[in-house]
Each structure stands twice: as C-alpha cells, then as structure tokens.
C-alpha cells in the first residue's frame, strides 16, 4: 500500500510539472488561484476528523475548524478564479 502511495505521488508530481509548463503570463494569476483552490482537497481529512466519532470532542472541534478553514480556501478560491476569468472573457470581440 505504501509503495503504491509513493508511486502515485511521484507520477502526480511529474504530471503536474508537465501540465503547467507552458502557461501564458496572462493566466498566471488564475492558474495560481485555481490551483490554490485545489489545495483545499485537505477538506477530505477535515471531514473525516469532524464527522467520525473517534478521538472524542477535541478531534471533533479540530475537525470542525479545519472544515471551515478548508471551505474558505475551496469556495473562496474557486469563486475568485471564476470572477477573474470572467473578466478575461467579456472583451469587445467576446470570448476568445
């Protein structure tokens, strides 16, 4: 299992490096805030901590705060990226 996790990890890093290598500079900000929203994936761990009974009240409290923090990251990140990209679209020639 651990070997598989590292395998996935290394492949994902290389995939990430390949995916992003040639970004036009006008998209730097949206790319950054869009990928920033993806880092909110840690919400998965937060949900488990807040929703599962093990560990008692402290884990629940930590999990709940983590859910809130991750949701700020996720919702804020996606919305702000969408707002920016929306501005890139409505040019006089329309979307391009």
């Amino acid at each position, binding site marked *: *299992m651990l070997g*598989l*996790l590292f395998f996935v*990890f290394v492949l*994902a890093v290389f995939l*990430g490096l390949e*995916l*992003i*290598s*040639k*970004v036009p*500079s*006008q*998209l*730097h*900000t*949206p*790319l*950054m805030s*869009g*990928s*920033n*929203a*993806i*880092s*909110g994936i*840690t*919400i*998965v*761990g*937060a949900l488990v*901590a*807040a*929703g599962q009974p093990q560990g*008692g009240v402290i884990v629940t409290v*930590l*999990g*709940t*705060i*983590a*859910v*809130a*923090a*991750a*949701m*700020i*990251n*996720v*919702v*804020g*990140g*996606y919305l*702000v*990226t969408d707002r*920016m*990209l929306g*501005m*890139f679209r409505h*040019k006089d020639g329309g979307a*391009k």
Partner: protein
Amino acid sequence: MFAPDHPLITTLYIVASALFIVGLKMLNRAATARRGNLISGVGMLTAIVATCLLAGMKFHWILLGAVVGSAIGAVAASAVKMTAMPEMVGLFNGFGGLASMLVAWAEFHKWRAEGWAAYHQLLGPGAPDSPRFTAAAIAFTALVGAVTFSGSVVAFLKLAEWITGRPILFRGQRLVNGLIVLTVLAAAGLVTVRPEAPWAYGAFAVVMVVGLLLGVTSVIPIGGADMPVVISLLNSYSGVAAAAAGFIILNNGLIVAGSLVGASGLILTNIMCKAMNRSLGNVLFSGFGATESSGEAAAAQGEVKPISVEDAYYILEAARSVVFVPGYGMAVAQAQHVVRELGQLLEKNGAEVKYCIHPVAGRMPGHMNVLLAEANVPYEQLVEPGDVNPTIENVDVAIVIGANDVVNPAAREDPKSPLWGMPIINVDQARTCIVLKRSMRPGFAGVENPLFFKPNTRMLFGDAKASVSALVAEFKAE
C-alpha cells in the same frame, strides 16, 4: 454507507483526481480556462461527496464548519477589489495550510486517545505496520501546514500594508532562523522516532508552534517586490501539505491533488525567479535591496526633467506608437480604468497602443493582466517584454505607470546594481519615455533608477490616476 476501501468510494476519488487534472490542463489556455476551473470545482465536490458517503459520518459539526467557511469564502471572494487580489489569494492559500495542520493535529490526537492498535485499525487494511511512518507524515504535514498558514498571513499583512512591505531585518537573523529550523526539525524527529512516548505530544506541539514561528520569520525579511515569488512558493507549500496529509490517512485523492498543486506552484515560482534573474535562495534569504541603496548609484545621476500634463499631451498627440508599462503603482492608484480610456483615445487618434507587462510587475504572478482585463483591455494588446524590446527604438512614447525596477536600465548597464542581469523592458530606448511617478523616491527594492535621468525621459509627477485623468481631459478638450 461505505467503508473507505469500497469500490464506489475509490472510484469517486479517481474521478475527482481526473477532473482536477483535466481542469488544470484547461487552465493553461485562455479559451478554456473558465471551464477548466469549473471542472476542477466539480472534482472537489466529487471528493467531498465521496468522503461524506463513508460509514459512521455524523454531519452536524461538518455542516457548521462548512456553512461558516463557505460563507466567509464566498463573501470575501465576491467583495474583494481586483487591486487587492494578491493578498486575498495569499490569505485563501493560508487557510488551506491551516486546515492541513489541523488535520494532522486531529489525527495525532485520535492516535494518542485510542492507542496505536485501534488507530492502526482505523487507518484501514493497507495501513503501514510501523507507527513511525504515520508519525513522520503527521509531523511533516503539521510543519508544512503551519509554515504555509503563518507565512501566508504575514504575506497578506505585508501586501495589505497593515505592516511595512519593506524587508524586516535584524542582527543575527540568520542565526535565529537557523535555530528555529533546527528546533522544529529536532521536534519533528522526536515525534517520528518515539510517537508514543509520554512527551511526544509536547514535541508535536513544538512542531506546530515553532512551525508557525518559522512561517513568520521566513517571510518578514522578503520585500514587497519579491512577493510574486513568495505567493507562488506558499501556494506550492499548501499543495505539499495536502499531499502529506494524504500519506497520513492513506488517501490517493489527496496525494494526487496535493502533488499537482505543489508542482504547479514550483513552476510558477521558477518562472518568477527567472523573470528577476535570481535564484530562489537569493529571493528567500537575501533581504533584497535593504542594504544596497545608496553610495555610487546616487553619484551616477544627471538632471531630472519634469513635464507638465499639457506638454505630455502634445507628445502623445503626435505619437504613432505608444506602449504602456504598468507596475504596482497603477494598482495602488486604481488607475487601470483611466489608463484604458487614455489607450482608447490614443487609438482613436491613430496611434498603435500596446500594454507591455513584465512577469513580476505587481505583487503576484499576472497581477497587471488581471487589472487591465478588469478595465476591459483586449488581451491581444497585452504583450510581454520579449515582444516589445526588439523593436522598442520604433516606439514613439513609452508611458511608465507606477513601475520601477522592471524598467531600470541599471539591470543592463551597472554590474554593481542588485538588479544586474534582470530581464527588463527597455523603455529608455524608446524615442520618448514618460514616467508617471508620485515623487523621486526609489522603488520598492530601494534601488536608484538611472532611467529618470536619461535625456529622453520626462517625469510627470503626481498621483498616477490624477495624471492620466488629466491627459484624458486634454484629449477630450480637443
């Protein structure tokens, strides 16, 4: 409801990962970027749904956290001004780091409360036999998450100018930072080696507290002009923290998404460093510009030639080609809309108008592009230094609006300058260069700019927005 290794749950996480990959890929091109962001958002929703389908989930606390977090995120995202985007992106990123740190803490607490045997059971069938692997993952996640959080908060404070944007330096700073790093590594090592010792919880607390301190001390010595590097690096960190959290709870979805973010953040960081001709180490550790502004640079000066709005108008009125070079000053003055208006008037007057944007202009990657897009400048007119520099001699007027270091010819001419070797926009080689500037103070990096003393440079002093508005008024008066 389903066990964590149920095929449905696994499938949903795989779908989420694929959606993230497709979404990121689409963010690479202007035409598909918005849809890409949406697709990546659907991926996030898929991952959240998969997690909520796990057996034994109780939702009242989750709902509380999710409602509060979503509300804050939504309000902040829709209220933020485009000029304040760098600090907002930085802050959102910090919350991702905080969440990862808290997840690591919750997992460690669970482990300590239930004991290794029960916790090992909880981790599921593929759990590592040695507690040390999980302990190392917990300590690493907490550390990176803590650095991301406090580092992002400091970056936010600097960018919002709640604290000074200049490098904050003190004697023995490197020694202090070195001690902090050693302490945090030692504590993380102790947690890894003896996770079940009675004092291990204390060591874990040290990892978190000193990790938070490390985030602060590593960002305060970095000046405002280097913020694009810091913001993209912190972005990378938040991905690394999420991927590390995936190694705690053994979740491939977290590992894939976190690694993608970590890798893309690194690439952006690299692009930013290249645009300044500096290494990452130099950006992070040098306290750039805090010490080197004075002495011989000041000696190599000539006469500054101010220009009135009226005279600037006559120059522009006769110009056939005009290049705007915006910088952070345009963001501060919120001048993007009047700049666009001036650009339109110049075009109507028969001039060819371009906006040349340096990759590190402003306070985050692509900052100026966002502002000019907000002002409806068609992105065909937004060009990069490489497009303008080869033919800059044929440009009648280059208008520099609140940019400084990215047009500093010392980068080309003065091997002693801290900017030496940085690729700049060669506005000093245009026929005329008009610099809009509040006063003669040096730029954010604190480096003197010989551009202001060149024979073909004219200084239009005053607030950028007021100056551009006055020029617009002159054109309209015609």
